[in-house]
């Protein structure tokens, strides 16, 4: 069979496929037949021009050729555990949208968030450092979609392409910078300041100014009592930087929020731009 399918066609088909997968009541056979038609036209992996993940879109063509064929499109529903603490790494996930969070817990289940990532990053990057598991849990906090790749395929792609490995390792540096600033923020800032910083980091990774977050969720992320979150939101809203409705926060004045975060926001993001490429 002769194939006259362009990269653009494949992109459109992937968009349609994604739309179908997220549409309730779609017939499974039709979906399978549709997926098969994509397979007949081209290899089933996404083309580089289609991916929105920041790492996958900045790597050179040879690097993409090493990893691209191993990417499987996946939905990332809220609450999905991507890396279980103390369990062997199975897959890394490159996000196109949504937010993942790396969380650590005390033995009595007090949790705190160590770091977040979205379409600029990936889960399971410990595997790039030559380890097989970690004590942190990685989960989806804001639903999205992306690509998963088996750890074996990721490792072998990194062996094939130095530039892929170097880009991903630079991302690990950026992530460590983020956790360093989280630690600095935790000891030096008020709850309002920490919340402002966190809202900015979240805002970078969503596509609109409205963010669906409960106070309970924010209290876990910041490891404070829930009323401290409610009070801090009340104060930040009083300054006019945000608007809150039940379980929803709207960013009204981002620049003012950055000033309010008092230097605790921006350095990891600048490192990403300096070392990798466009951020958010």
């Amino acid at each position, binding site marked *: 069979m002769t194939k006259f399918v362009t990269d653009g066609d494949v992109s459109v088909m992937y968009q349609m496929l994604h739309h179908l997968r997220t549409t309730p009541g779609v017939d499974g056979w039709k979906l399978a037949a549709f997926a098969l038609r994509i397979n007949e036209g081209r290899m089933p992996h996404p083309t580089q021009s289609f991916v929105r993940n920041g790492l996958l879109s900045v790597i050179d063509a040879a690097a993409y050729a090493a990893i691209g064929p191993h990417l499987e499109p996946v939905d990332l529903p809220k609450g999905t555990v991507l890396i279980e603490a103390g369990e062997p790494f199975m897959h890394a996930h490159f996000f196109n949208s949504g937010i993942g969070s790396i969380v650590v817990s005390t033995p009595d289940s007090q949790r705190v968030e160590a770091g977040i990532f979205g379409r600029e990053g990936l889960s399971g990057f410990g595997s790039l450092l030559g380890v097989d598991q970690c004590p942190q849990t990685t989960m989806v906090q804001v639903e999205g979609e992306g690509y998963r790749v088996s750890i074996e395929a990721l490792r072998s792609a990194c062996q094939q392409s130095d530039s892929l490995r170097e880009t991903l390792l630079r991302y690990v540096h950026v992530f460590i910078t983020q956790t360093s600033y989280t630690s600095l923020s935790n000891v030096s800032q*008020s709850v309002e300041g920490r919340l402002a910083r966190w809202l900015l980091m979240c805002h970078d990774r969503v596509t609109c100014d409205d963010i669906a977050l409960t106070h*309970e969720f924010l209290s876990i992320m910041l490891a404070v*009592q829930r*009323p401290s979150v*409610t009070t801090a939101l009340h104060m930040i809203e009083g300054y006019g930087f945000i608007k809150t409705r039940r*379980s929803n926060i709207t960013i009204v004045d981002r620049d003012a929020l950055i000033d309010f975060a008092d230097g605790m926001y921006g350095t990891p993001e600048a490192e990403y731009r300096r070392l990798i490429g466009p951020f958010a």
Partner: protein
Amino acid sequence: MSRFYFHQQIANGIIEDPDGTEAVDLTAARHEAILAARQLLANAILAGVAPLGTAFQITDEGGQVLLEVPFREALPPQFTKSD
């Protein structure tokens, strides 16, 4: 388990608790409120400002006030003597 709401009394009104929290009973909810008040007072003291709130009103899902917890009750006894 029941859902309890911790509305906070401030000088010129109330900061509403939109979500509430699950607790076994009112005693457990009061304990949570004391922990929360301690943190709010500590945050204000660390920041060198007056705390915004003065008490929690614990309500049920219907908005019925079940208990009022003044923040004073979260302080160590030597700071609550009224001499």
